[in-house]
């Protein structure tokens, strides 16, 4: 499964997922109004310390900031050019610390555990007569569809290239959608053929549990 999870057994990996999520929310809310350079510097240093305590390769995970580098630079420049550069520094410090803390939770929590931790949020679905199983099933379906979509697109691109010589075109999006939607219909039928998203009401004791 594609995931940002960094396998390991550090103290942060061992904390329960739900506790980590709550701590993150509390810290984020507390840090948001802070404008003091020294407090934020200390927070940033603590965060980096936490990363390095993850063990080998821990500190490398700070790379999560890289795709946001340009954006952070622009924000700093906008502050520096039109106002106070010190304000820019504080803003970047705060954003960086918050992003890194959130990322710390992500890389030390398996997707399964994260899912498990937030499942209670879906309990209200059953009041509406919907199965709380549905979000989990939907997540699995997305993970199954994404690679299939990419392969539908690449075979379509090949067919296009074989007759046009051109590599790709936005005009492929329409036919791509038609083919991909037909594929989704097949999956919907397959789901219904095996009892649908809700499953069968009662537990079937004649079949469960499976033993050798």
């Amino acid at each position, binding site marked *: *499964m594609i995931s940002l999870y960094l396998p390991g057994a550090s103290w942060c990996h061992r904390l329960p997922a739900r506790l980590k999520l709550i701590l993150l929310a509390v810290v984020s809310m507390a840090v948001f109004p802070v404008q003091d350079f020294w407090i934020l510097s200390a927070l940033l240093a603590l965060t980096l310390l936490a990363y390095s305590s993850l063990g080998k390769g821990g500190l490398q995970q700070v790379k999560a900031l890289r795709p946001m580098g340009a954006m952070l630079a622009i924000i700093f420049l906008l502050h520096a050019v039109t106002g106070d550069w010190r304000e820019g520094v504080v803003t970047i410090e705060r954003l960086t610390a918050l992003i890194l803390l959130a990322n710390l939770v992500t890389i030390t929590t398996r997707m399964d555990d994260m899912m498990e931790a937030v499942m209670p949020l879906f309990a209200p679905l*059953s009041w509406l*007569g*919907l199965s709380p*199983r549905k979000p989990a099933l939907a997540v*699995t*379906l997305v*993970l*199954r569809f994404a*690679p*299939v979509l990419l*392969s539908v697109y690449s075979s379509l691109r090949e067919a296009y290239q074989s007759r046009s010589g051109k590599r790709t075109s936005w005009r492929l999006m329409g036919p791509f959608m038609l083919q991909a939607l037909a*594929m989704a219909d*097949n*999956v919907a*039928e*397959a*789901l*219904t*053929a*095996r*009892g*649908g998203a*809700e*499953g*069968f*009401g*009662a*537990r*079937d004791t*004649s*079949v*469960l*549990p*499976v*033993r*050798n």
Partner: protein
Amino acid sequence: MAFFRKRQENAQASSFNPDADPYAVLENVGLEMTGHQVLQDISLKLSERRIGIVGLNGSGKSSLIRLLNGLRLPTSGDVRVFGADTKTVQRDLPRYVGFVFQNPDHQAIFPTVEEEIAFGLTQLGASKTEAVSGARVFLERHGCAHLGPKPFADLSEGQKQLICILAVLVMKPKLLVLDEPMSSLDGLATRRIQNLIAALDQRIIMISHDLSLLTSYDRVLWMEGGRLRMDGSPQDVLPAYEADISARADIPVDGDAF
């Protein structure tokens, strides 16, 4: 609301009789889809253990077997499977009638083999851990333990179809309906799947364009233009079907005939 609905379903499910003989009865069945009459006037009593279905593309074979699993409901007439009207038990039918699709890529719902098998067990009320361990046991029993963690997309065509059939069998259906399961397989994989199916206790209804797969069956139905054209033993139906194809193939035609 949900509670009420569930109880109602259980009451309906109890009207199934897994030992019903014949296990499927179709009475004057018609099926219309998007203004098109796909099936008409079909009356059948099915009680044989092995039934084959033949017919040209578009003859209504696939629609006919979809009626048995509740994927389609008849627009006229009645379909009763294991004694229950499919209109009232539609949602519970897949528990008794397993369905194997022509293209394994269309059937697989989950990213990995293990999840694909485990799904059937969670459908029957297993918890997540029960289902995963159950799936492992089941795969091992069928000599596929090593395939469990693999992504479905990485399997060979034969392995894919094998997993699709196992994913249905894990639910222990009483009847297995197969829509040309061998059409994408090479010779060896076809023979292996054929042997697997032949050894099953379940009642089997299978569509096939490869007539040699049906010679040992108890009964063969020949569909044409949404109607039943011939119904009998494979020794009678298969040669007649083949002769009809040969006769028609040699007449010069325009594109409409395809």
